[in-house]
């Protein structure tokens, strides 16, 4: 088995060094910054954080080129020279350690090889371990999300009270430019944001639940297979259209349309009304409702349908009184997933809903949502310690947990339902 012998040595000699190389790439930027900070002249540090950030970035981008480094006004010639040498020493050292390690490990692996050595089993053991590591990436991602959100959120709550955030009814995160201005700290009562999110989600579900469910009923119970094969993918296209397109459509066509029709009726309608965003979002999630509902209703055993029909029930009576109740847990799961999708949807609301945090249940007025606020607070330049940017992470944490709970409940109900009829 010479193949396995080769593979065995390859794995031994490359695996650890590759990992180290990855670490090197990841930490390279931070190390650069560290070196630069050491040498940054006092004068720049005194000016302020923005200037420091700018200078660090400029030096970082030019660290490979000593001439440019020297020509920059920020560093003195000595420190530019020093920085250049220090960085390249570190780089060369790290990389040579990696190559030496690679050689040594490879040599060790080759020395273990002989005719009786079972390379295949060893190789498979190593591969199996690598695959296991890969399969934990999903878990690591979840941990990464939770940890980074919690970390930033804690920093937020060190500056803003928890109760103010969760139960406050006034939201205006724009901190004033000068310290002495009124309301310079901003206010972070998130209730209007939560109600706005709920309002838009509610409108979306009013559209998507009946349309999706009835479409699913028609497709799974009435339509001929040929019709079904044609229309099911058509419906899925609605889910495949990028949300930014829906957002543009909502902002450009639906919003003004609702506004002008409202005005004809003598109503005051905001151009960025919750109704416009909710309606379009509803259209977007129709396929999320219909496709899973279709699956669960098709999974209801034929025998139940036949039993009902044989008693002289019409098709619609059979659907309403037997198939629908039997499929209810699965349908509830589908609805929960759709709600979770609507709560987390970003682009439609960013483009079609407003920024003003109004505490209202009027679908014709503008409201804002959790996702809109996250985007608004984090897009553009900002420093990372202000409560304004940290608030986005607190909102993100709330969003993550609410959708997590909805998803888990939905997954459990659907799974139980599947097990019942399998």
């Amino acid at each position, binding site marked *: 088995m010479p193949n396995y012998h080769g593979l065995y040595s390859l794995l031994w000699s490359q695996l650890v060094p590759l990992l180290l190389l990855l670490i090197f790439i*990841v930490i390279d930027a*931070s190390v650069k*910054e560290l070196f630069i900070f050491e040498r940054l002249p006092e004068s720049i540090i005194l000016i302020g954080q923005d200037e420091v950030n700018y200078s660090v970035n400029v030096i970082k981008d030019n660290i490979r080129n000593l001439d440019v480094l020297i020509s920059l006004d920020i560093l003195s010639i000595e420190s530019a020279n020093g920085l250049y040498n220090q960085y390249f020493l570190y780089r060369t050292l790290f990389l040579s350690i990696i190559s030496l390690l690679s050689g040594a490990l490879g040599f060790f692996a080759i020395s273990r090889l002989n005719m009786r050595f079972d390379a295949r089993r060893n190789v*498979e053991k190593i591969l*199996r371990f690598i*695959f*296991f590591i*890969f*399969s*934990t*990436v*999903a*878990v690591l*991602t*979840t941990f*990464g*999300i939770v940890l*980074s*959100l919690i970390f930033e959120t804690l920093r937020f709550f060190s500056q803003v009270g928890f109760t103010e955030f969760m139960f406050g009814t006034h939201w205006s995160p724009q901190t004033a430019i000068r310290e002495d201005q009124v309301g310079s700290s901003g206010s972070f009562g998130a209730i209007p944001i939560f109600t706005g999110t709920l309002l838009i989600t509610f409108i979306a579900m009013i559209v998507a639940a009946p*349309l999706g*469910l*009835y*479409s699913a*009923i*028609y*497709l799974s119970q009435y339509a001929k297979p040929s019709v079904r094969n044609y*229309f099911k993918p*058509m*419906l899925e*296209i*609605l889910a*495949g*259209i*990028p949300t*930014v*397109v*829906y957002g*543009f459509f909502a902002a*450009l066509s639906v919003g003004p349309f609702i506004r002008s029709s409202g005005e004809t009726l003598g109503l005051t309608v905001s151009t960025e009304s919750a109704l416009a965003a909710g309606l379009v979002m509803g259209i977007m999630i129709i396929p999320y409702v219909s496709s899973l509902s279709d699956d669960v209703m098709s999974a209801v055993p034929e025998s139940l349908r036949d039993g009902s029909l044989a008693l002289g029930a*019409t*098709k*619609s*009576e059979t659907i309403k009184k037997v198939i629908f109740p039997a499929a209810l847990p699965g349908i509830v799961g589908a609805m929960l*997933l759709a709600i979770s*999708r609507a*709560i*987390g949807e*970003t*682009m439609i609301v960013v483009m079609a809903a407003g920024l003003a945090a109004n505490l209202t249940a009027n679908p014709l007025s503008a409201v804002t949502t959790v*996702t809109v606020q*996250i*985007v608004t607070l*984090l897009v553009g330049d900002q420093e990372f310690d202000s409560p304004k940017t940290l608030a*986005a*992470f607190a909102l993100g944490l709330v969003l*993550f947990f609410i*959708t*997590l709970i909805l998803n*888990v409940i939905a*997954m459990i109900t659907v799974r139980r339902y599947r097990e019942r009829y399998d």
Partner: protein
Amino acid sequence: MTDKALTLKRKFAETRFKIYGLASLFLAMVMLVVIISSMTYRSIPAFTNYGINLEIKLANEFIDKDDLDYRGIIRETIFSLDSECDDRKCRRSFSKLFSSGAAYDLRDALEEDESLYEKNFNFYILFSDDADLFYKFGIDKNLPENERRLNDQEILWLEGFQEKGLVEKKFSSNLFTNGDSREPEIAGVLGAVIGSMYTILITLIISFPIGVLAAIYLESFASKNRITDFIEVNINNLAAVPSIVFGLLGLALFINFFGMPRSAPLVGGCVLSLMTLPVIIIATRASLQSVPPSIREAALAMGASEMQVVFQHILPAALPGILTGTIIGLARAFGESAPLLLIGMVAFVVDIPQSVMDPATALPVQVYIWADSPERAFVAKTSAATLVLIFLLIIINLAAVILRKKYELKW
């Protein structure tokens, strides 16, 4: 109630119910058609542009090819149209009617054909967006002058050009050949498309191997225990986490913690690959499951190891399904914009990105940026960009469909 009346009522209910179903389906389809056709309709103006044919006189001039003032030449040429316009204010107003891209067009034309340097020749100068819109849609002259994009004098000029027969409408390929610009008439999606390509490439490189190998582990090697159960729940949940949360993760972890560059497709690709990973894992597991166990048993009975069975027999059989799932996951990532906003891929980038480290934007984000721009001409550009986006997605999905049809194995 008599039997007959009841039967009638039940029949009526049956018909009504069926009509509800049909109507819902129909309504959903109508919305699809409305969205696509409204985008198409509104994008039409983006594919043409009005311009003016003027003679550029270089014949008798001394020209330094390396340091030519293209802008100056254009200005000189357009001011020849109205010699009375000689004060600053008038000149500014007049030159506002022409695209600032005309200078670049001239440079390109001269670089392409060197003989032009010694000639007088006719050159097509693009109008600016406001003038272009005037020819396309007209203007409401009843509005007070200061609420219009064009004042009375400017309208007079434009009408004058038209009367002289100088105005010409041409197909404009700027949308496909240019990067972003502040000027709607020269802005294009090429930069954004390239940015999207880089981002998706990174996504593919990261998520495909990890996703497939993770799925193989979970499906073929992992024993059923708490750890694998936990991993599974995680994967399923991750598939339903709102995309913007991945953006927050990218911002906090990749940019703030690891110090990776903002606005780079590299970071965008990393974030999107975390999002695509669960899709690929789920699709791969499904297609591994669809390979009948008899194949595995047959190979095992021949003395192949578990690993050999997977890589030599099961994986090849499951590959079409895996690739289809991967393409669908990538298509989703391709249309995604929310997480990219948070990691700074929403920047105004004129240059076409040359590598995964260059600042770039993605096509869906470009749509968002343009939709946010106040210039009216961007409406058509944005609609056209959404069409390009949808068109590319259709191609990607078509690839998946064809792949599935062609290599689908029947067991």
